[in-house]
């Protein structure tokens, strides 16, 4: 296959189009599980089918569109920056995932305090000094304060976990 054509599809719009096609196919397949009803004129599976089909058509349109446009190439420096930062994004996502997972085990307060400290460190720029003590204090106060405010005053039971 011509290398130039492949390269065009690698552009942002191309990735978008391919993602849309894959999602629409997955969605349509999953919609076959929807139980068909006999009473209602239009069953529960009708609109999902429509959505899936229209998205499929549109993703084809997107791919056709992007193959027509010529994408501007990224400069070398931008590419280098992006690679570095993506790691931080992944870490943040992973951190948030762990935060939610831990919450039911150790409880809202401890989990939130830990999250606060680690996330704040991840988000601060490389050069700046991280004051872990202050972050710990602020995180703890924030978590404890909001937990008790919502628990005592409003009776929302946040996950309390083993500890507190």
């Amino acid at each position, binding site marked *: 296959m011509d290398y130039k054509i492949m390269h065009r599809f690698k552009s*942002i719009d191309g990735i978008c189009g391919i993602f849309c096609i894959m999602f629409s196919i997955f969605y349509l397949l999953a919609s076959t599980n929807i139980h068909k009803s006999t009473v209602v004129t239009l069953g529960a599976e009708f609109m999902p089918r429509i959505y899936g089909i229209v998205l499929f058509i549109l993703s084809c349109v997107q791919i056709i569109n992007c193959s027509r446009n010529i994408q501007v190439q990224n400069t070398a420096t931008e590419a280098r920056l992006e690679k570095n930062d993506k790691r931080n994004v992944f870490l943040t996502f992973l951190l948030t995932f762990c935060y939610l997972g831990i919450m039911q085990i150790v409880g809202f307060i401890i989990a939130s305090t830990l999250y606060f400290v680690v996330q704040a460190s991840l988000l601060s720029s490389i050069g700046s000094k991280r004051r872990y003590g202050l972050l710990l204090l602020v995180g703890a106060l924030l978590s404890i304060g909001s937990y008790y405010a919502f628990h005592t005053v409003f009776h929302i039971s946040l996950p309390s976990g083993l500890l507190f």
Partner: protein
Amino acid sequence: MDNFIIGAQAVLNLPSILLIVIGIITGIIFGAIPGLSATMAIALFLPITYGLSPTQGIVLLIALYVGGISGGLISAILTHIPGTPSSVATCFDGWPLTQKGQATKALGVGIVFSFIGTLFSTIILIFLSPILARFAIKFGAYEYFALGIFSLSMIGSLSGKSLAKGISSALFGCMFATVGIDMIGAVPRFSFGVQSMKMGFNILPVMIGMFAVAEILKAAEESRHPLQSETIKINIKGIKGFGFSWAEFRSQWSNGLYSSLIGTGIGILPGIGGGIANIIAYSAVKNKSKYPEKFGSGIIDGVVATETSNNAAIGGALVPLLCLGIPGDTVTAMLLGGLTLHGISPGPLMFTQNVDIVYGIFIALLISAVLMLLIEFYGLRAFVALLKLPKSTLLPGIFIFCVIGAFGVNNQMFDVWTVLLFGGIGYFFNKIKMPTAPFILGFIIGPIIEVNLRRGLMFSQGSFAPFITSPIATVFLSASLLSLVLSGIKNIRRKMDKKSI
């Protein structure tokens, strides 16, 4: 006139005024913090009002409502994260204004026009509600379907450069909204056997995820770079009043009026409220503007449209509630419950049997509007000072509240995980340059279109004729057709202009 005196007697006493003040301040706080919303504030305070007298209880709730809806603009403008679903579209122009160093102006405009929106719809509520209520009930399945189609036709102005992507984004929204138990057939869809999936996704975690988490992930991507400043530079000195000039105010007059009408109208229709009003008003104002291409780059027109309409929806939602006992949105549904518990049944007789409550509500609305204006005016500089906090501490703090808010929706962890899921989706959408506004629109409007299409067909036993014979439905369907055609023409014209260059 006597009715006003009765209402005033009920409300103008120290305990009630104090409750209004508390309500406004608490409402603004709930509205301003992403994750906590006006709906949550009312749901939390509702049980507390049971111990108060009926009038005191209702004025507190009204104040929370006004403060809560208005407060959303603060975080939308300052952090690009909407404080409540009613301020989603405020981010579009509010945040760029902050980036240009005009945060004070954006906030000032938002506050003043929130006030104008509340005032406008309250006046309509006071003088025109019985007529409007009787008109609102004419909206049945066919009409709501047509209205839904019309709202979706606004995607055009929210899609940016690629209409195909915009519509795709809206479709994604519709598709994610189908997850859960089908409302009409009681059949589970896309639950993959998981019990919690059967409950579907709620708009609050979805919105928090797409905006707050996506923002955090974006910050994670950019913040490590040593050149990136941790805070935004703002010039607070030398700001007079609300931060914008009289001339600018005059230029926004027609936008404000237009948005107030849209907001009030959407509020009056039961089942849809401020969450949709702000997005539709934004698109409508953009469509009729002489410089639509400037929207999104940071112009006050965008903030005016959204903040006027979401506050106008408050008065609108109270119209069917007070006249017919039919709630206009989720908040008024809770107000209905609150009134019932006190032995008051809103309905056609309310204007004669419970004059004190009805006119008490009117006066409470007016007082709340004024208080909101004053409190936010004095708080203006404080809000902007919040920007001095480094993003690295502000964002994790906001996320903790988002967790509380998401958990508080249904008291289950599933909604909190939803936040993370949609955070990932929102971040991915930003990367592949898929616009997020149509997604939110599709998520909210999709179910409305589907439910009403299927209901309508049940009513007509399979015939599509009533969809076209109903006058209201025809109006909206033709309007949507017109809107799509016009945006299509604009799109083609733009592409042709590009080619000719």
